[in-house]
């Protein structure tokens, strides 16, 4: 027997291969990933682990910058090297095995150090989507971070050091429309019903219903009606305290039908209404959205403004005008106990109001584009619809330049509050800075050679003390961390690199797809205790 069903476009090979991730970031997220080009500086174990989790999901292209030759130690922690790679260019050796992962991905390499590249080809970094570095020295990181800050390219500097993982993320500005929050409160507007919602609910008379109908009224209707009643007795307020909420719940409970013995029926829809009292909140502008609307980039558009800010400006105007203080309606209704007809009707009411709001927004966006002389095609109706659906959960990050971490005054201010906690994992960031100083002074990693561990402990301690002194911070609470870092001797543990590699690959995907909130801006993984921590520096 043959299938009458039409061939669906979603059955393509590519869709099948990427199916499990398309369910997360969607076709548009995938398209962004496929047009991205990342640069990795230093293809050590951590570096290739990051690339692996970018190549597998199908990043467009990557470039490796690495002037090192493969050593025996490299082979012991880098999966993308063969046992006979020793002595070859590390960039060339790793790229070959990395490219085997996915024929959709393009890759190239430069077998020069990043210092040489910065020297000989200053425009080299201009067109990358994200630049990632592992294990680069203090002097280079300052130059590179300044350059990428100017270019507005996200930069992730990370390290895998013994049991410790570290990443510092630099991004001037990053905006996210789709943050994919875990538990989103539904946008129901029961305190500020729009006319068609009010009209629909007012037309429903629960009191005359038989049990079957009564038990299938969507909870939104029940909650709205009981809230109205409650508000009449409470000056139009929304219940805030536990007592107030309890009194609203009581009103809802009183509406449940009783059986012949006077015992309430099991009406799930009413139970849902009672539960929803907790999430009932006044319709307003969340503070993080307010900040975006009041941002300089939103208020003063220019011909160079990015689509996000143009839509934000349109949103600002919408809130002040048509929205009457509210964001555009999201237009989605959670599932609830109800019969099909009434649920779908209610859903349509929400949906069409959302479509109306989005249309108004789109007209405003078009108007703004004209005003700032941008092409009317630069923002599509689809873009605006997506934006409108997520206005309450959108996200803005303004980062800081890594070079500032090397300005003692600035850094002291950022660091000091965190170091007041003697257990803070940020101590490892301090130690890694100490290791940098150690390398500049002594040319090796502390503890790199078995017979130098003890003397190196003393030397590293002195490097760290000097740094803390420069930052006007007190000494470390205990020497244990210095001992532990010297024990590692610059060694890279593969499982620590794989952990950090996975995390950093995902952070890179967040920047590329503009979905999900990234780390802001410093991340530490302590493999000894299996803990992670994030800090804003």
């Amino acid at each position, binding site marked *: 027997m043959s299938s009458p*069903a039409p061939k669906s476009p*979603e059955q393509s090979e590519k869709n099948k291969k990427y199916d499990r991730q398309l*369910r997360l970031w969607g076709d548009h997220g995938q398209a962004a990933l496929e047009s991205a080009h990342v640069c990795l500086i230093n293809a050590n174990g951590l570096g290739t682990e990051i690339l692996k*989790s970018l190549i*597998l999901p199908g990043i467009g292209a990557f470039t490796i910058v690495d002037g090192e030759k493969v050593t*025996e130690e490299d082979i012991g922690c880098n999966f993308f090297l063969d046992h006979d790679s020793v002595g070859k260019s590390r960039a060339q050796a790793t790229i070959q095995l990395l490219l085997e992962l996915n024929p959709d991905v393009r890759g190239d390499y430069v077998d020069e150090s990043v210092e040489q590249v910065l020297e000989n080809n200053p425009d080299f970094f201009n067109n990358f989507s994200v630049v990632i570095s592992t294990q680069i020295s203090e002097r280079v990181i300052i130059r590179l971070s300044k350059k990428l800050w100017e270019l507005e390219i996200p930069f992730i500097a990370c390290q895998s050091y013994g*049991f410790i993982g570290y990443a510092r993320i630099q991004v001037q500005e990053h905006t996210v429309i789709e943050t994919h929050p875990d538990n989103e409160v539904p946008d129901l507007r029961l305190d500020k019903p729009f006319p068609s919602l009010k009209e629909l609910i007012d037309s429903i008379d629960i009191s005359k219903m038989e049990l079957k109908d009564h038990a299938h009224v969507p909870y939104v209707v029940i909650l709205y009606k009981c809230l109205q009643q409650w508000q009449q007795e409470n000056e139009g307020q929304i219940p805030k305290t536990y007592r107030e909420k309890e009194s609203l719940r009581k009103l809802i409970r009183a509406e449940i039908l009783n059986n012949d013995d006077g015992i309430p029926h099991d009406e799930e829809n009413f139970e849902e209404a009672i539960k929803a009292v907790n999430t009932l909140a006044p319709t307003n502008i969340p503070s993080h959205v307010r900040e975006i609307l009041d941002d300089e980039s939103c208020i003063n558009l220019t011909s160079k403004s990015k689509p996000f800010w143009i839509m934000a400006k349109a949103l600002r105007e919408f809130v002040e005008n048509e929205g009457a203080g509210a964001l555009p309606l999201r237009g989605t209704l959670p599932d609830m106990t109800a019969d099909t007809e009434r649920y779908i009707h209610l859903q349509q009411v929400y949906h069409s109001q959302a479509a109306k709001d989005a249309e108004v927004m789109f007209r405003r966006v078009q108007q703004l584009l004209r005003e700032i002389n941008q092409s009317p095609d630069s923002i599509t109706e689809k873009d605006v619809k997506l934006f409108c659906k997520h206005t309450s959960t959108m996200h803005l990050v303004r980062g800081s330049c890594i070079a500032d971490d090397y300005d003692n005054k600035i850094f002291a201010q950022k660091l000091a509050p965190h170091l007041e906690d003697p257990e803070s994992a940020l101590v490892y960031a301090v130690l890694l800075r100490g290791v940098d100083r150690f390398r500049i002074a002594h040319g090796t990693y502390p503890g790199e050679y078995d017979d130098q561990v003890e003397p190196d402990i003393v030397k590293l301690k002195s490097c760290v003390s000097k740094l803390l002194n420069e930052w006007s911070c007190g000494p470390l609470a205990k020497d244990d961390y210095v001992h532990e870092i010297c*024990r590692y001797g610059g060694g890279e543990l593969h499982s620590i690199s*794989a952990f950090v590699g996975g995390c950093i690959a995902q952070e890179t995907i967040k920047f590329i797809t503009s979905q999900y909130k990234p*780390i802001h801006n410093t991340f530490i993984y302590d493999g000894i205790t299996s803990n992670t921590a994030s800090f804003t520096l």
Partner: protein
Amino acid sequence: MMGSGDGSDNLHHRWSHLRKILERPGPFCHPDFEASPETLNFLMNSCKILVIGAGGLGCELLKDLAYMGFRNIHVIDMDTIELSNLNRQFLFRHKDIGKSKAEVAANFINTRIQGCHVVPHFSKIQDFDESFYRQFHIVVCGLDSIVARRWINGMIISLLNYENGVLDTCSIIPIIDGGTEGFKGNVRVILPGMTACIDCTLDLFPPQITYPLCTIANTPRLPEHCIEYVKVIQWPKENPWSVPIDGDDPQHISWIYEKSSERAAQFSIPGVTYRLVQGVVKNIIPAVASTNAVVAAACATEAFKLATSCCLPLNNYMVFNDLEGVYTYAYEAERKEDCLACSQVPQKIEFKADCKLEELIAHLCESAQFRMRSPGITTQTGGHSRTLYMSTVASIEQQTRGNLRRTLQELGLSDGDQLLVADPTSPNTVVLQLKLLNSTT
């Protein structure tokens, strides 16, 4: 086989990262840790580790363990490679589609990493007995099935030795279990008989989403309801190819897609897409490379800690989520005093005498205490055993089907009787002490 520090200079250098950690003392080490070359020697030449699953987590685990110094690794997986695995299961290529995951993965690792010896088993975990599992020092699970996890958990627990009620700690084989779903994951370390086991924390696994039949049939609201309707009601009725649904057959999926679109249109329900149909029919769990990498890496780190005593292991549960920044949280999951799998406490169940056998079975499947799949029940009275119901063998199912509608009293059960329950969630028969209540109470 070459040792780690026995002369070969290049290998000496190759593993210098690990040697630094293992041959030097540190302030955060496990109190039992003794810095010495012997530890790496044990890891490389004596320690035997079992990886269960060669999928998203399994591929990562094999690589991570091999670089953490484990060289004697066994891997079990009964699955073959599919196209949709390739976005994360990095040991497989397009040309490998259809081949055994365990075999391809083992071969890849053995070729890439000199000295590593991975032994593949293209089999089910149930194909092996206690003598097989007893040979390992550590078991690491990268599974997507709760039933398989519970089975392994039960198996490893059955290897424990108790002498006069006291656990012989030498008989403990630690289990490290990883799980992922989208951007979320978890890692746990189980010391069977000492810390919380899989069955102790059954409530951590959310029950699978099911839609009530009346919603599907009478009041559909979501596209999922329409798809379930076609799957559960329309397919068995019309059965277009006279076979059960095969989620991997594009013709089947297309048929369901078309029929559920029709049903959705009839009720004005928006949102039926081909991708959603596939997801609902096959119960697809989203997966990305990065989460698998992270969770497997954390498992491998714990395996390294357990095998070398270089640090205290995770105690005992960690959740991971990188939806918003990177979030982890480690805590101690508690043992359940009357755990079905790891406690020595006899299990009791209470039922009324007029309760039907099918209700008892439903209870075993649905209650948070048991969460069984298809329990087969035997009773032992007066020295001989009698099967009350068993669904796994067709002929016995037919013979015992009539018992389902009979009450416990009618089946001749009395207070204090023992019910022996066999279920795919455990390799061991569970003994339940029946407390029969008077039907009037």
